[in-house]
């Protein structure tokens, strides 16, 4: 069961400067494409500190911001909003492949 739907749980995200890839700040202050490695802020004050850290580490990323997430009993983190779910998981349909002659 998902817990904490209040929006207090947050991770810091941004787009990587060099290629725009969606990244998250981890506990070591590194930007990672893996949401499961993101540092988790558990309340608003931790969120503010996390955002400060993200901004301090923003040399290689663009416009860090906080993303509200939920955490399951097994520790799985998932964004609350559809926009952030799509940012985390990618397109919700299969894009046509480079060498595709037809759309499959």
């Amino acid at each position, binding site marked *: 069961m998902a817990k904490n739907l209040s929006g207090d749980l947050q991770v810091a995200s941004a787009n990587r400067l060099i290629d*725009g890839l969606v990244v998250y700040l981890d506990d070591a202050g590194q930007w990672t494409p893996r949401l499961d490695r993101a540092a988790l802020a558990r309340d608003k004050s931790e969120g503010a500190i996390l955002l400060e850290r993200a901004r301090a580490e923003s040399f290689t990323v663009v416009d860090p911001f906080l993303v509200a997430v939920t955490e399951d009993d097994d520790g799985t983190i998932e964004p609350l909003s559809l926009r952030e779910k799509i940012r985390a998981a990618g397109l919700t349909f299969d894009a046509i492949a480079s060498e595709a002659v037809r759309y499959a």
Partner: protein
Amino acid sequence: MPDTHFYRYDDYDRALVGERVEQFRDQVRRRIAGELTEEQFKPLRLTNGLYLQLHAYMLRIAIPYGTLSSRQLRKLAEIARRYDRGYGHFTTRQNLQLNWIKLEDAPDALAMLADVDMHAMQTSGNVIRNVTADHFAGAAIDEIEDPRIWCEIVRQWSTLHPEFSFLPRKFKIAITGSPNDRAAVRVHDVGLRLWKNEQGETGFEVIVGGGLGRTPLIGKTLREFLPRDELLAYLEATLRVYNRYGRRDNIYKARIKILVHEIGVEKMREEVEAEYAATRSSALKLAPATIEAIARQFAPPPLRPKRTRVPEVEALKLENRAFALWLKSNVSPHRVAGHAIVTASLKPAGAPPGDASAVQMEGVADIADAYSQGEVRVSHEQNLVFPHVAIESLPEVYRALERLGFAEANVGKITDIIACPGLDYCALANARSIPVAQNISTHFASLARQHDIGDLKIKISGCINACGHHHVGHIGILGVDKNGVELYQISLGGDVDFGKTALGTILGPAVEADKVVEAVDALVATYLEARADGERFVDTYRRIGARPFKERVYGNP
């Protein structure tokens, strides 16, 4: 095939675009090195068409007036393959968007574009954007004059125009040279319609203040008849008035349509005419030699009249029902006997509207070389067009398109859906568009059923900015976000046909994503039961009104 009937960059164009690429290369280098902040860099990348979207940078490439040579299309495919994920999205402004460009690769992509006389300038920002035109220009049977000549003149005037580089808001111009408007001129900031007056002179009707987005408005006629050689002087006057009086305090009220709406078209006309009186005899008045020099670049290809009734075509029509339907929906009359205009549908059943892989782009370029004078057009309805095909070649073109998956006989039909990229890509969107289009397209995939339903335009936007033109869809669908849930607002009765341009009316409460197909099905069923002979969906809607449609979708109150 050589580019014989396209505008070719002169030394000035080439130097300007080349310098711009090198400037941007240096700007990117400085940004990556940390010498520029994002705040400093963002306007620089945007003026070069580079947006940062949800997952990646997106490069919006200008395709002036939607005209591409096969050489240019092959280059777009090469860029897509080398620097993107091998596909691109043709847009409602006749542009191409590449959705996965890396910042470090963007200058090289722009350099490759410059090699084929293309760029991405002014595809963003508060400037005059890529000028759009009738995608049948230079080929249409109903055409008075090729609008691309005038698009090119406007392009040259507006590119990096110093006075109009910081307008209150973006500015979109469309030009049509036919009475049957295929360029949606009444829903642009300025729409220009070429027509002949009683004296037999060709000039422009100047329409101003149209637009979709948050405040949809239909443009009003500012000038009934403008002599052709005074076009730039009049546009300069119009832009100058907008630049002076357009609002800069509120982004939602900054478009020229709001200015025209607030002060009224009479006052707008008075202001523009006063400015025009001062500029009409200036250097902006176009010399006949200047017009002629541009017009020569758009000289029609040397097509000789051919037989119009071809036994092979007639035979295939009888044996292949899909081909017969394709002839009806995807093939249009050409001005030269024995020729036709062919629309390749980028809307095969269940596909993301407007997307093409690199291989498909190259395949289209091959078809253009073999059968269409090396020329391709991008339509604002997100399809590709072969403007000059001999009727005798139609079977080969059809088979070649079939191999590419672009032979769907659905142009103008219910699955020929316009859809913006929506929340799957776009940083501004509130809801997804493409999956909704895919669901509708899959549900109505039967060609026989589509042709029975007839002409029906569905347009889908993922937010109020209306890149999917939902306001002017016969059925418009707008995605909204309500407490984190995607809902879709349906409107009926929109239209961009000239003389019938109308904005759709909202039918009722927004429906959930998984109810959209059901709702469209109910609308179609209502139409099929009520239609009179020869009526399109939108005609029936106009005749019987919204109520029967509403009752079918929502039930009786």
